[in-house]
């Protein structure tokens, strides 16, 4: 007599891979109709999850193309998560090797950004930055302040202008987008519950990455001499909630 895991493997095979059904009650044609209801549910849940996570990808290629890609992904890369918000993590890697998308090299890159957006959406909250405290700090102590990337922020570099593409596809009327040569630097961050994406200039990205990597303010400033007003850039990134910092004597010190 087959064990429970063996029966479950056979059931999964019958639903997804048209495997045999001799362990179930009923004749084959009737069973096939009933198993098809499970198949619609299972694949429908996966496709629904992908559509929720990758709306810009869907807008870029249209519903029919996206659905075909989503079904193929679901077949080739079985879900291993019980929480569908975690489903589709490697959709970008799948799209990179998906033959029908061979002429759309930016598609996988947009998917990579959309997964980062989803991570920002569900990331931990942080207490708002104490900008007044930073401003009140004696000038000689400021260079030693250390920063970190906020939990709800992600940085992505790409050969494609991902931030521009993402922003343009938030609305129904999409303007033509030029692809100037990269690299392009995108920042995703959460503000008021919603995730936003914007492009950074190379020097801004350089400053952000140094600070996110834990560099002290003085060292980060020194690393981007081409940035005209690093304080203004820093204030903007902190106000967005993309960077956090710890004041000397504050928590963690």
């Amino acid at each position, binding site marked *: 007599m087959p064990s*429970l895991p063996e029966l479950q493997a056979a059931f999964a095979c019958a639903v997804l891979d048209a495997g045999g059904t001799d362990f179930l009650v009923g004749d084959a044609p009737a069973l096939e109709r009933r198993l098809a209801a499970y198949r619609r549910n299972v694949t429908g849940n996966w496709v629904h999850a992908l559509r929720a996570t990758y709306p810009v990808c869907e807008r870029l290629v249209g519903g029919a193309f996206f659905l075909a890609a989503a079904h193929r992904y679901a077949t080739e890369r079985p879900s*291993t998560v019980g929480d569908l918000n975690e489903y589709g993590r490697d959709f970008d890697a799948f799209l990179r090797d998906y033959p029908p998308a061979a002429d759309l090299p930016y598609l996988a890159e947009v998917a990579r950004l959309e997964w980062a957006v989803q991570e920002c959406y569900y990331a931990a909250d942080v207490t708002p930055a104490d900008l007044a405290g930073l401003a009140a700090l004696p000038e000689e102590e400021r260079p030693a302040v250390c920063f970190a990337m906020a939990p709800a922020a992600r940085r992505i570099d790409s050969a494609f202008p991902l931030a521009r593409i993402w922003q343009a596809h938030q609305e129904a009327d999409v303007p033509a987008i030029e692809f100037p040569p990269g690299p392009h630097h995108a920042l995703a961050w959460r503000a008021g519950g919603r995730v936003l994406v914007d492009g950074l200039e190379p020097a801004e990205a350089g400053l952000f990455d140094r600070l996110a990597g834990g560099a002290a303010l003085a060292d980060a400033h020194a690393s981007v001499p081409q940035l005209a007003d690093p304080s203004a850039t820093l204030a903007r990134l902190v106000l967005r909630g993309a960077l956090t910092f710890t004041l000397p004597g504050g928590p963690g010190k």
Partner: protein
Amino acid sequence: MLPACAGIGLRPPHHARVLAERPDLGWVEVHSENFFCAGGEALEFLEEVRRRHPVSLHGVGLSLGSPAGAPSRRHLAKLRQLADRIRPAAVSEHLSWSMVGERHLNDLLPLPHTDEALATVCERVRETQDALGRRLLVENVSSYVRFKDSPMAEWDFVAEVAQRTGCGILLDVNNIYVSARNHGFDPMAFVAAIPPGDVAEIHLAGHEETDGFLVDTHGRPVCDAVWDLYRRTLARTGPRPTLVEWDTDIPDLRVLLAEAAKADRMLEAPHALAA
């Protein structure tokens, strides 16, 4: 404890309106997995709802019918984290499986009703109750197919899980009706076999008929036959917290509230007090 009145399944399309209009809700139930996150607006929303109403956390991904493993323990850890944060009035899961090995089918699949499946489910229910430090409610699912080797009746299986683990039963009356029609048994035989004292919650929902069998779509109003089965269930159990679920083609909030009001009228009717 949930109040013995009607509540609604709260889904994202209604989140903003519930916050803004503060409708009169007895209690609400949400899918636990939608809030498996570290922070952000979803959790903030649920915490605000929790300040106003009793909240039930209803899981769909624990796969109680699969042997425990690393993925199920990770899932359980997330559920515990959410429960610690929300302090729900109830936590429930389905008597079904979705995981086999590393593969997850993300659906509520039926179990064979064997001693082995019973032992597996009971071990997982105990593990869950131990991790959460509270009683779990387990729900009977609808099914479209049956296993040949399934010696126990489903209702005996459900009752036995509660008997062995001390968990409560979330009796889904629509699921009983759907399975009864699909497999040709008397739905009241199911209801009659469940000890009334174990029934901690009742679910109501709509289904659809396709290809000569019933599919549990949660996309329609509760049908008359299910309302009738609900009335007869209440006559045995007495008033119980009752949820109206709607998950596909989700209608206007008013439609959902009208369904809940109908359940409330039945809960208040004298025959519901029989037990």
